[in-house]
């Protein structure tokens, strides 16, 4: 009998998700789950789900989970980790949750150096509530609350969370990756692996910002959305490692087509 070469990670539940066709949440759920499996962390992992499209993430990851109030996942994660430092704690948050209503919690969680991992999904829009402008919506990008496109005179510029968190003095691992091509997804997984490893070693706070698409609310087919991300988001949201606990800050640089980091 042939050996299966592609199986569901143990850290993912055997269920269908509610995500829209072409949504990149599925990719990133899988990458997180693969990393938990490969590092052997699943049995001591507690996840924290946000409010947003991934509100039901607790049904998709096969580990203990908390569902947090909107924006508060880093505070909930802090509580879990402080109560049980032996647990591996991660939050999985979107851009409205983390960069808008939850701005205070993410900044202070990072600044305290909580030994938790934040998986930050940036798709430049509010998904679940129907495509409103997010703090990360691109200039000129149309959303239901900026129907003529984001006007930077009124709404300011999109917030670069990885850069912002990297300015904190507290040691951390901060990276940005993307999932719009298989190569980028491989790189994203590597960033997640480093993030969880730093936590498992008790080293530092870690956050990986993952550029994502929202075909439904962007109003385009999934393949086109991937291209839109590359054309519009990549120049503004550079990929790379922004900060490590070892070497202080590093200038971000784009990953190379041949896979060299």
């Amino acid at each position, binding site marked *: 009998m042939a050996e299966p070469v592609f199986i569901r990670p143990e850290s993912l539940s055997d269920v269908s998700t509610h995500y829209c066709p072409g949504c990149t949440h599925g990719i990133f759920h899988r990458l997180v789950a693969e990393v938990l499996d490969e590092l052997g962390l699943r*049995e001591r*992992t507690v996840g924290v789900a946000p409010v947003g499209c991934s509100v039901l993430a607790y049904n998709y990851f096969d*580990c203990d*989970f908390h*569902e*947090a*109030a909107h924006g508060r996942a880093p505070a909930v994660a802090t*509580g879990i980790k402080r109560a049980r430092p032996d*647990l591996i704690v991660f939050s999985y948050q979107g851009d409205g949750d983390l960069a808008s209503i939850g701005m205070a919690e993410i*900044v202070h969680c990072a600044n305290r150096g909580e030994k938790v991992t934040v998986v930050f999904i940036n798709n430049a829009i509010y998904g679940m509530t129907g495509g409103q402008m997010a703090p990360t919506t691109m200039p000129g990008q149309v959303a239901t609350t900026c129907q003529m496109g984001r006007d930077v005179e009124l709404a300011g510029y999109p917030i670069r969370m990885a850069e912002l968190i990297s300015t904190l003095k507290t040691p951390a691992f901060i990276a940005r990756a993307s999932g719009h091509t298989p190569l980028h997804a491989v790189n994203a997984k590597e960033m997640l692996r480093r993030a969880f490893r730093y936590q498992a070693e008790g080293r530092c706070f870690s956050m990986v910002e993952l550029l994502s698409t929202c075909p439904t609310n962007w109003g385009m087919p999934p393949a086109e959305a991937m291209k839109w991300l590359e054309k519009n988001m990549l120049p503004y949201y550079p990929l790379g490692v922004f900060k490590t606990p070892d070497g202080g800050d590093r200038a971000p640089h784009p990953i190379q087509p041949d896979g060299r980091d």
Partner: protein
Amino acid sequence: MAKKLMKGSEAIAEAAVQAGCHLFFGYPITPQNEIPEYLSSRLPQVGGTFVQAESEVASINMLYGAAGTGERVMTSSSSPGISLMAEGISYIAGAELPVVLVNIMRAGPGLGGILPSQSDYFQTTKGLAHGDFRVLALAPWSIQEAADLIQDAFDLADYYRNPVMVVGDGLIGQMMEPVEFREDRRPIKELPPKTWASTGWKKDRPKAIINSLFLDPEELERHNFKLKAKYDEMEREEIRFAYYGPEEGELDVLIIAYGTVARVGLTALEELGEQGIRVGMIRPITLFPFPYEAIRNAADRAKHILVTELSTGQMIEDVHLALRDGRPLHFHCRLGGMLISPEEVIDKVHEILEGRSEEIRHG
């Protein structure tokens, strides 16, 4: 253990530690700062953790996380801070997590002032936050009782898997009185193991999901009925009150007061007794569940009823509910951080007996 002269806030904090609470998350606000200050140095001594959060909003969500792991956890704040925590308390109630909350009430609305008040009675017992939930609320009248109720609060929270709030006015936070901690203290309830806690899943139990989201209305209704059953059990099992004054015979006046206001009432009651006036006093110790029946029974033998509160009239609505008959009541209050004195209560009782006090009717 010998008696110690302790500030209320410190006694509350120490009682929590002795009840096995090794985690505290909070944000500074007067007049309860001595609670976090005390715990910031005390908790590390017992291997515990203190976190000064970035806001009350963050504090309550840290509680949500920590309580979800099954550990005993507490926060404390004062009125405006409790308002900020309201959303998180609703989530905690929805997710059925045991936490202990302390509200050292100050006068409002808004920023108000920092002096004692009982203006959060409605907030505590009726409308703490969105959704259909209750918190079990305990109102101590002395530092010793505050310490005792804090310890009970952890047992009650664990038993009911529900937030328990200890409400004191500013006097409870700032006053010093002798306190004794019982070394032989046993839990007041039989506490079930926390099999629901998120402690890492080795597939030896159902996956722990700490959650208040129920998108299926039938499922949410079942959840709501489950919560209601807990609140009903609290109303059957947890009502606490105290009565002071003549045990038998007709009362000229029945005073109803809680917290430190009842201390003032007790002094007035004793002085009025010396004047030959028969005064009794009922002191609710649980604000939810409220001692409706006890008040109804005591009122049956009283000619007049006087409610005293540091609010414009909040608990008095529950007294009206208790009496059922629309019977008129007398009311005395001080507001804004001003306190009721025994002399005021004595004067009010004389006014009532001489027919000079205006009555308040309900409805």
